[in-house]
Structure formats: structure tokens, C-alpha cells
């Protein structure tokens, strides 16, 4: 009989399952326990950012359509886009060390930039200022909870 065939067939004796002598699940469960919570937190932030952007875009479209019929600037204070952008400088430099939080921070930064661009188009839209402030507040909260690298 061919030696190669003999080696392989005999060594296959060693193949097969070997259960651990103790149940490893409790320790595995303890080690992975943090992950789902982190994921939910990240998903929550991402969702919040998406909702903010979507709300901004929808509202902007509605305002643009109805600009001829609804006077929006009558009571709203004038908005200076340049000074606002300077006050709310992007926090892109502050990327959290945890990759899960880093992804959420990117979502929020992206939302912030889009809102600022929308404000440049509609400087008198007060509701966009509110959305931008809430987005930046969330970004600051993220920064406080997840230290940057």
C-alpha cells in the first residue's frame, strides 16, 4: 500500500470532535457581554443622526416649496452662516478610540456638515439651527463618553 495513503488514513484516527472538559460558555458570555450594548448605543446614535438629517432635508424641501406662500423670516432672527460655522467647528479631529463609537462620530459629523450646507442654502431657517445644535450636542456627549485617540 502507498505510504502517503497509509499516513493519511491512519492519521485521520486523530480527527474528530473533542469536547472541552468544562463548559466554556459562561466565560465566553462574560467576555462578549459588553458588545451588544455598545452596538445598540452606536445604532441609536447612527439612527438619531440619520433621523436628524432626514428631517432637515424633508423640512428644507417643504420650506422651499412653500416659500412663496409662508413668510418664514418675519419673526426668526437672521442667521449668519459664517459665524455659526466658526462657532461650531467640526469635531472630526476627535475620533473615539473605540471603533464602534468612531463610526457613530462619523455619522454625526456627516450630519453636522450636511446641516451646515443646508443652512448656507436657507440662512433664515431657524429649525435647521435647532437640528444642528442637537446634532452637535450629541457629538459632544459622544466625545465625553468615549475619549478620543
Amino acid at each position, binding site marked *: 500500500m502507498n*505510504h502517503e495513503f497509509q*499516513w493519511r488514513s491512519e492519521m*485521520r484516527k*486523530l480527527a474528530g470532535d473533542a469536547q472541552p*472538559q*468544562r463548559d466554556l460558555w459562561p466565560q465566553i458570555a462574560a467576555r462578549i457581554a459588553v458588545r451588544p450594548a455598545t452596538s445598540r448605543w452606536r445604532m441609536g446614535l447612527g439612527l438619531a443622526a440619520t433621523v436628524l438629517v432626514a428631517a432637515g432635508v424633508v423640512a428644507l424641501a417643504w420650506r422651499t416649496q412653500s416659500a412663496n406662500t409662508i413668510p418664514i423670516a418675519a419673526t426668526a432672527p437672521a442667521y449668519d452662516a459664517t459665524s455659526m460655522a466658526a462657532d461650531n467647528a467640526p469635531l472630526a479631529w476627535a475620533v473615539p478610540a473605540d471603533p464602534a463609537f468612531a463610526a457613530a462620530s462619523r455619522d454625526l459629523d456627516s450630519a453636522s456638515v450636511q446641516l451646515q450646507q443646508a443652512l448656507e442654502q436657507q440662512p433664515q431657517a431657524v429649525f435647521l439651527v435647532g437640528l444642528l445644535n442637537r446634532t452637535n450636542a450629541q457629538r459632544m456627549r459622544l466625545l465625553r463618553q468615549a475619549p478620543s485617540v
Partner: protein
Amino acid sequence: MAAGEALKPGTPPPHPSSRMDGLALTAGVPIAELPARDADAALVRRAVGGEATAFEQLYRRHAGRVHGAILRLVGMDRARAEELTQDAFVQAWRKLGSFRHESAFSTWMHRLGVNTALMDLRIRREEDATDSDELLAAAGGEVPFCAAERGDLERAVAALPTRARAVLVLHDVEGFKHEEISAELGMAVGSSKAQLHRARGLLRRALADR
């Protein structure tokens, strides 16, 4: 609701995601009745959604195979194999989102277990520094097999030098090709063949000396 408990008349069936007893439904079929690959795929989807109990079921279905492969690679060191099996499943939980269902979960998980053990072998650097030229020179001709009982074989394999043992186990037991072994262990294909030849020679000598 406990597994197998009958529904009371008028009671709506529980939502699949609320069932933690291994009977979560996939298109109306209980996990236990699905083919293994489909059952794993259903459990993976639930685990990706953050359901740790689904991942526990995956662990229970695959721990034996993964631990077996790791145990052989680390030379039957049970404590170390158990640590590495834990590491492999923790890594699997973290990487589960990137699992694309292109291969069976069992294959993916087995590979992850093997990689975890090989990474540990690389970190520990226990290998005796055998010159690759010396190995290549030794790789002539076939080594006749020496029959042995499983227990003797296990002990002899466990006593082999780390790298030779890893190549022997990957090739002869786990069914890896030399190209795959060379990629996993960062060596030339020729070195993998030479290490296999060396391992078989050492094994044969050890079994003959019993």
C-alpha cells in the same frame, strides 16, 4: 414558553425572535429540524442582531470540532486549548457581522479556531530553529508508516516540535493543502513539505521506540 410546550387555544404563536430555546423558526421550520447549514445560518442572523442565546447555540453546536482541532495543534495541552477555544468564539462573535454566508458557518468557525491556535503558536515562538535547507535536504523519499493505537499516536504527535506538529496536523488530520499551510504559517510551500516529511520521520521513530 418552554420547548415543546403546547399553545393554548386562541394564544398567538410567539414571535420567532422571542424564542430562546433552540426552536426559533426559519420560514416556519424549527431550528432543530433544519439542515445543519440552514440552522447555523438562522442562528448567525439572530446572533448578529445581538441575541447572545443564539450565539450560545452556535457555540454548543461547534465547540467540539473547534476545540478538537485546537487541542491537536497545541499538542494536547487541554488548559491552553480551552483558553484558545474561548478566544476563537469571542473573535467569532466580534467578526460575525462580516460573515457573508458564502461558506458554511462550521467551515468558517473551524478556520477561525485553527487560525487562533496558529497565531498563538507564532506568538509563543516555541519552534526549534531548524534550518530550511537542512529540512529540504531531508525531504527525499517517503517515510513508511508505523501503525499505532490512537493514544500512542496522540502522545507522539503532541511531543513533536511545534512547527512540525502544526504542519502534520494541518495536512494529515485537518486536510489542509501545502499551499494553505504555507500561507497560514508564513513559510514556503517547499518548507511545508519538508516539515511534513520531518514530522513523519520523527513520529515514526517515536512510535518505533515505544
